[in-house]
């Protein structure tokens, strides 16, 4: 047995039981809204929700915007069709235009790249944590209309403004999810896996917001195991993890996770179970030094993103208000 092996049928049954329980006892809602991105996490969440409450009580929301990859909509529809649920298409480009998401982003980029504008594409990337002991800093990578690639380290203000502008996307999507959940008297299912949930790879009050998060306890390897078991189409399972947020294609491992998810899973599991770096290195195919750096990065990200998990903090507890 490998560290991350699960019994997919037993795990599916456990998750479905929990979904029904929280809907009926805690949330008191009649169904679930799932935002489908064309990625494996949202597809597995969708399939689990359908297994839990039936396809009539689940709605899949498709919310592309100007910079979404071409396959996003197609793969989202494929996931919804494969489990027979209703889909609602909400192109959020107009909302993002109206709040100035694209304009503010371009203005922030021009702080480091004054010529940036029409015809350019860009993304931000994280410097490789597993390769050096350098602090985590972000670089802007931009492609000019002529195809020239430019790379610039982001100073504080530009970095914060770029992230703040792109966060409109996740927050707009969540607003639409709650609109549909409210009108249907449904709950919102969040789609983070364990890596994203633990390491704070989400936008507060954006994709981090949800009423239930059915796969937040599962390592990415386990999500893929469930995807195979549940019959998630192969095209979706084959798609490399992407943020699908920036105009230049961006893998999750260049934006946030310093090593590919298979190796990150092993490191995170080892860290969570007190397994020494040396043993994790053999399991992950990394050097001991690389695993030690990933361990340090895991703790640094937990610390840096603790605020994302926090509910509003009060001066004094109000004991009459209790969580479910």
């Amino acid at each position, binding site marked *: 047995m490998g560290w991350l092996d699960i019994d997919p049928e037993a795990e599916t049954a456990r998750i479905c039981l929990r979904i029904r329980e929280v809907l009926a006892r805690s949330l008191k809602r009649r169904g679930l809204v799932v935002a489908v991105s064309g990625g494996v996490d949202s597809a597995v969440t969708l399939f689990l929700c359908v297994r839990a409450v039936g396809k009539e009580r689940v709605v899949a929301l498709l919310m592309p915007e100007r910079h979404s990859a071409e396959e996003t909509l197609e793969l989202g529809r494929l996931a919804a069709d494969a489990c027979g649920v209703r889909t609602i298409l909400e192109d959020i480009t107009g909302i993002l235009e109206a709040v100035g998401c694209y304009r503010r982003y371009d203005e922030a980029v021009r702080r480091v790249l004054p010529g940036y504008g029409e015809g350019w594409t860009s993304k931000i990337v994280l*410097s490789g944590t597993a390769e*050096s*002991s*350098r*602090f*985590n*800093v972000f670089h802007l990578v931009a492609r000019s209309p002529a195809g020239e690639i430019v790379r610039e*380290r*982001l*100073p*504080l*203000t530009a*970095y*914060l403004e770029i992230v703040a502008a792109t966060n409109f996307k996740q927050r707009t999507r969540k607003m639409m999810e709650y609109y549909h959940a409210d009108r249907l008297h449904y709950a919102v299912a969040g789609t983070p896996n364990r890596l994203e949930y633990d390491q704070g790879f989400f936008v507060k009050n954006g994709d981090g917001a949800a009423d239930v998060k059915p796969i937040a306890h599962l390592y990415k390897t386990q999500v893929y195991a469930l995807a195979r078991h549940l019959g998630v189409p192969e095209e979706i399972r084959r798609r490399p993890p992407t943020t699908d947020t920036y105009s230049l294609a961006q893998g999750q491992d260049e934006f946030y996770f310093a090593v590919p998810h298979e190796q990150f899973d092993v490191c995170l599991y080892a860290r969570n179970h007190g397994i020494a770096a040396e043993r994790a290195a053999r399991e992950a195919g990394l050097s001991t030094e690389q695993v030690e750096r990933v361990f340090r990065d895991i703790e*640094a990200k937990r*610390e*840096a993103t603790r605020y994302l998990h926090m509910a509003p903090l009060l001066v004094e507890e109000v004991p009459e208000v209790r969580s479910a």
Partner: protein
Amino acid sequence: MLSLGVGDAAVREEVKRFIVDNFLFGDSEGFDENASFLESGVIDSTGILELVTFLEETYQIRVEDEELVPENLGSIDAVTRYLKRKRNGGAA
């Protein structure tokens, strides 16, 4: 490792004042000025960017990508030594 001279004490004090004012809202109680920033939890990764901006603007230096390491920016003493090397014109 370079030792700190008299002139460095003023720089060290400026760096410390920035840390306490910017990250602790001026409240230095319980702040161990010899501890690693990250281990003590005083500065996170965004905080490192703030520190870099402060150093570049205050001391008119350019912090290079390869210099973004704990040996240069991980504690008040490390930053002070780093500034000394940079201002002496040496590679840091």
